[in-house]
């Protein structure tokens, strides 16, 4: 680039700058208001894993006459705390995504209003104990240890089967998992180990850390970057993920999955939806909760959010029916216990992994 320019070119450049500014001004948001006239909004507050096919969202608008607006940010924990902080003055009308690890906190803080949404057959078993018609269960899934079956065959190593196995020297440095303080998947896994070992959980975790487990901030990094079957083709053949994950690792043209979930390592997560206390549009909110329980939405849940429907008799996608096996007896911790001890557990856990 030459360093001296005639002044004529300078003024041409100034003109270009002004033209560009005017062009950009056309892009401004000022004065733009594209709210569809005549419809009432239903604002959904949810976590950033919320996904529904476009047709189904349009379907809600069509059937109910409301217009659905989605506000999604953070994980399930962030969502719950956001709801607690804005209690009585919510940022929306209806919330989806508070799970059984956070449900008690939300119910105690009076975040949800009684709505008595009628539950379909099969959903009743997932209701939070002691809840009086405020939170409707929508979906469930299990956080389980997943393994790369091919890797273990190639390395002539017997794959692990239980939580006990993971702290054995044979599996040193082979596990990647998301942390409990920054990931709801990680929190569910921690609760699973508490369900399994009771007060002995911290000793197990110390052994796990000593066994060189890679602890990441989120599920993504553990699965997509570190796991051998993830998008980034990492180095670790064991990962903490979901019971449904094997349905997503079936290579094109193949009839088998390259991964397997260990069903003796699982903790069940249930996600709920409810009408928010102080909602501007409680009728619309209730209509949306009911919509989430309709057969059409329940059928779409596996492909959209990798979770199982709660409605009995909902058909599963083909790959799921074959490869996504649900555990019969996942480890459990009652919501009341979680509510009472969660913070203490997380602090102790944090100390163990960063020590």
């Amino acid at each position, binding site marked *: *680039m030459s*360093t001296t*320019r005639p*002044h004529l070119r*300078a003024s041409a*450049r*100034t003109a*270009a*700058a002004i033209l560009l500014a005017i062009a*950009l*001004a056309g*892009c*401004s*948001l*000022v004065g*733009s*208001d594209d709210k569809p006239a005549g419809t009432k909004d239903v604002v959904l507050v949810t976590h*950033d*894993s*919320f*996904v529904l096919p*476009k047709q189904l969202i349009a379907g809600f608008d069509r059937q109910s006459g409301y217009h659905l*607006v*989605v*506000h999604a*940010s953070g*994980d399930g*924990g*962030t969502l719950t*705390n*956001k709801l607690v*902080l804005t209690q009585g*003055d919510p*940022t929306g009308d209806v919330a989806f995504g508070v799970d059984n690890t956070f449900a008690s*906190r939300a119910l105690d803080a009076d975040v949800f209003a009684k709505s008595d949404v009628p539950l379909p057959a099969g959903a009743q078993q997932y209701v939070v104990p002691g809840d009086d018609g405020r939170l409707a269960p929508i979906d469930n899934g299990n956080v389980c240890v997943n393994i790369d079956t091919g890797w273990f065959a190639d390395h002539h190593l017997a794959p692990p089967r239980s939580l006990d196995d993971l702290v054995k020297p044979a599996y040193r440095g082979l596990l990647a998992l998301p942390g409990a*303080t*920054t990931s709801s998947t990680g929190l569910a896994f921690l609760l699973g180990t508490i369900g399994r070992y009771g007060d002995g959980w911290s000793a197990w975790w110390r052994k796990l850390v000593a066994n060189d487990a*890679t602890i*990441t*901030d989120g*599920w*993504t*990094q553990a*699965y*997509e*970057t*570190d796991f051998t079957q993830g*998008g*980034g083709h*990492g*180095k670790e053949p064991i990962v903490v993920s979901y019971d449904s*994950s094997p349905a*997503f690792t079936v290579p094109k043209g193949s009839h088998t999955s390259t991964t397997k979930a260990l069903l003796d390592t699982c903790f069940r997560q249930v996600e709920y939806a409810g009408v928010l206390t102080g909602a501007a549009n409680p009728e619309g909110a209730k209509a949306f909760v009911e919509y989430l329980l309709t057969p059409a939405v329940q059928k779409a849940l596996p*492909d*959209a959010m990798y979770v199982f429907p709660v409605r009995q008799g909902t058909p599963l996608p083909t790959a799921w029916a074959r490869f996504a096996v649900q555990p019969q007896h996942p480890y459990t911790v009652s919501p009341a216990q979680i509510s009472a001890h969660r913070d203490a557990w*997380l*602090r102790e856990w*944090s100390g163990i*992994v*960063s020590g």
Partner: protein
Amino acid sequence: MSTARRLAALAATALVPLAVLGVFFVLPVSGMVGRGFWPHGHLDVGGVLDVLTRPEIRRAVWFTVWTSTVATLLAGALGLPAAYVLHRVAIPGRTWLRAILVVPFVLPTVVVGVAFELLIGQSGPLAFLGLDGSPVAIVAGLVFFNASVVIRVVGGAWESLDPRPAEAAAALGASPRQVLRDVTLPALRPAIVSASTVVFLFCATAFGIVLTLGGLRYSSVETQIYLLTTNLLDLQGAAALSILQLLVVTLLLLAAAAARRTPDAGVARSRARLRRPARSDGPALLATFVLLLLVVGPIASLVVASLRIDGAWSTANYRALQTPGAHQALLVPVTDAVVNSLRIAVDATWMSLLLGLTVAALVTRRSRSRSERHLRAVLDGLFMLPLGVSAVTLGFGFLVTLGRPPLDLRDSPLLIPVAQALVALPLVVRVLVPVLAGIDDRLRQAAATLGASPVRALAVVDLPVIWKPILAAAGFAFACSLGEFGATSFLVRDDRPTLPVVIFRLIGHPGDLNFGMALAGSVVLGATTAAVMLIVEQLRVPSVGTL
């Protein structure tokens, strides 16, 4: 004009920026901090102070201090020579180099994390270094991110620096090293101090980089605030750390203001004359090269990964940007998010420029009394505060305090650009203040004596000098807005997302295609920003002659 009238005029001009700062920063932050101090309706200061004695908090504070200090020093050590090379030496392709070196600054931190992971992670080409999850990786990430700030801020000042004192010194027999030490660096001190302050604050509030590169073994003040607020709902703890952050920012700004004060930094309106690379430029060229490697390495690994599918080259990831992703990961195609991001960035840019110019003009005018000078100094510091405060606190603060009339702004489409403008504002101010401060007030007085109105004086005295810095600031603000993630993620609507939010969502959804699209989206974001920076460079209006 009497002192009282001058102060009144000052206050009146300050009113608009102060109101914006009050509503969109002071109110939300104090709303969150207040909840920590009044946990059950009564004031509990002791409980807040107790937080600071917890071992994990003390560890986080120490970790933040040392990583930020090291990263700031390194960013300076690499950024200063690069600023010199890219702004004063005639090397081929320097416009392009400048644009490339600024890209990291706008990449969302989550993307920076992924880019570094691709490089130093377990299956990356640099895995043998064993940096994955180490503090070295965190510091490298911070330097990667912030060196561009040093180049931009110091480079702008260096370029418009009057070369004659240095030439005179050289003619009188000073060695290049002596010229640098005794003439050039003292003249650049305000810009260097500004840049270092900003970089230190960016490092100290870095969140995504510490999380993605450090795993959970290391935590900083910022990640602790995130954890305490979003996970444990320990508002007392978060309040204690937020107050600590505010305190550190204030102290740092006071120290910076003292260090910045130079007797007469007269910025002459000379255009930089580029010199040919000489042997004495060797070390500077080497530092620039090292920085280039540090920047290009992760970016290249990102670009390569975005173009590979199942071991073969493919543009499928880019073509997929017209779709909402696999398994309906998004509500709208990525291309829609690009348009949204650009629209929001336009608004954020003019807002931050308007506010930034007002603030910069306010704080640089010569004061006639001690109280006036103090007032201007306080104003200067006030608008720097957003730099040092957690995006989590601010984001939650918006939700908590801006939901009720008369400030029912939570759902306003302009809230996002306003929030981003506030994030960019300190940068804009820091770019403009050294230049405005360098204009000799006697020129304005002379213009006034010769009968020029204040507006005309502004047009003939200030404008010719400040044109370039304004464009540079605009580019920065635009880039800041394009890459902003923290505050935006709290406010964004799913049907109108921004590109960084979309990238974050894609990364969080299973499936090779989504991961690939996230990489492609990051490349698009980086390329868009680089293009904007290139346009800004091209539009640089040559200054109007020399004095």
